[in-house]
């Protein structure tokens, strides 16, 4: 007979599996929106490049385009996680879905992580759409020097954004017009979070070096392009990222616990 601890662990994983499966079914239930994302991505890219032309940028080298590809992916990730995931949790709160979730799972944290894992799989489509778009418009073939490091960086970036979006959602859920903050955050966060390549200016290098959330995105470019962006060995960058992700997980767990208790006991959304 399994011990109580084992039974509890198995229960958590079963609930997590159910949440991941539920999230995936929900995300892939609208193939038309997936198609629209893939079809419209080259159009947005064309607009971006044309606008650079409007500023007077006439030519872009292949190396610059590779950097643009990863910067675009980083922006897509920040934007998707804040809007699709963070805002999704806020909407679940407003529509009373979280109360229903509570009646089926023990802890909202399991729901959030399960839904987040499903969402991180879904965001891989953004990368596919961008790679296809860069190929259609520039004939660019994506270069990946270290695939394993790239996978590690994408996993770390996804986990980091999962926790950041959850913390963000818990903090702003009570605010009116919180979508305005989301809109501003989708520009501010990537700037502080490793979107801009370090070689652009020494100030950016400084931001990237001291911002703990920048490392997964820097690792992404380093693994793809094969050179060090920061004067810090790769292994240390991975360790810093893991420490950041772990810290964010602990903060998320604490905040979700407070949020969960408040919602169960007082029926109110938010932390205070």
């Amino acid at each position, binding site marked *: 007979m399994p011990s109580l601890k084992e039974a509890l662990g198995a229960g958590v994983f079963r609930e997590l599996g159910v949440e991941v499966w539920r999230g995936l079914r929900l995300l892939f239930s609208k193939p038309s929106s997936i198609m629209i994302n893939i079809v419209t991505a080259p159009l947005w890219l064309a*607009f971006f490049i*044309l606008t650079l032309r409007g*500023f007077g940028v006439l030519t872009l080298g292949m190396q610059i385009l590779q950097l643009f590809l990863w910067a675009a992916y980083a922006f897509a990730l920040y934007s998707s996680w804040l809007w699709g995931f963070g805002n999704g949790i806020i909407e679940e709160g407003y529509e009373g879905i979280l109360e229903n979730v509570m009646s089926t799972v023990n802890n909202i944290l399991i729901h959030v992580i399960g839904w987040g894992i499903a969402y991180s799989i879904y965001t891989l489509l953004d990368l596919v759409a961008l790679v296809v778009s860069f190929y259609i418009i520039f004939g660019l073939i994506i270069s990946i020097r270290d695939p394993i490091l790239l996978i590690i960086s994408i996993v770390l970036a996804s986990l980091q954004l999962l926790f950041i979006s959850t913390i963000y959602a818990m903090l702003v859920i009570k605010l009116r017009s919180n979508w305005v903050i989301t809109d501003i955050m989708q520009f501010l966060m990537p700037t502080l979070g490793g979107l801009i390549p370090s070689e652009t200016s020494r100030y950016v290098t400084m931001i990237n070096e001291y911002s703990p959330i920048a490392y997964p995105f820097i690792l992404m470019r380093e693994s793809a392009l094969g050179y060090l962006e920061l004067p810090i060995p790769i292994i240390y960058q991975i360790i810093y990222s893991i420490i950041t992700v772990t810290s964010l997980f602990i903060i998320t767990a604490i905040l979700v616990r407070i949020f969960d208790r408040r919602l169960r006991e007082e029926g109110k959304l938010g932390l205070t």
Partner: protein
Amino acid sequence: MKVSRLSILYAVMINELKIISREPGGLALLIILPYFVAGGMAFIASFFVKITSGVFLRQFIGFEVLMLSMIMMQTGARFLWEEKRGGRLEFLLATPTSMYIVLFGTSMVMIIMNIGAFTIASLPLFYAEYGLVGTIKLALALLLLFIGLLPLYGLGLLIAGLVMKLNDADTVMNILTPILTILSGTTYPIYVLPWWIKELIYVLPMYITFHSMYLESASHESITFIVYLIIATIIYLLLGVTSYAKLERSFRSRGI
């Protein structure tokens, strides 16, 4: 008691204004967002070329026109869609108030809001570039913006027909927005595009609105563009109203 059409229009506009002012953050965003987008793009471009204040102002006007155009085109369609989804469209159609007044009132408020946001956002840039004369240039540019937003509302009514027919506002908007963004021609030199895309850009009012505003700010105003905008306003509004009339007839005969 007979209520005049003007009173009804006034009431509709005040109502819409109250609804919009419930979210002051959204209004603030209208002012801040162009700085983020134009500023972000200028930041990226600055690694390749030197960005002068004149170029930035031109691009800023371009982004403003683009953003406000997209809002304007979505206004009518979104309004009808939200009313339909909330089950209020039936009631609106049942009231003696003409839907044309409701749509005109809501769109006018949106135009006023857009122009207000543009004024606040652009004033510092116009002043920095042209000094006090810049405020006069801005006032004339605002007039052109007002004329330029009217045909977009007509275009929005055409889109409303598509939204109602396909029964999905988000899908239609997600497809149309990037297409119309590229066809706006407001943030890039259109000569780099193939001739047939250029023709499409000339047919739509966004590029002419942007270009006439930019020329106005650079003291090279062109009466041809203003005449073009007025003609475009008449044509697009007529097309939009005719399309909406057809849509409303189908609502009344076959239901929503």
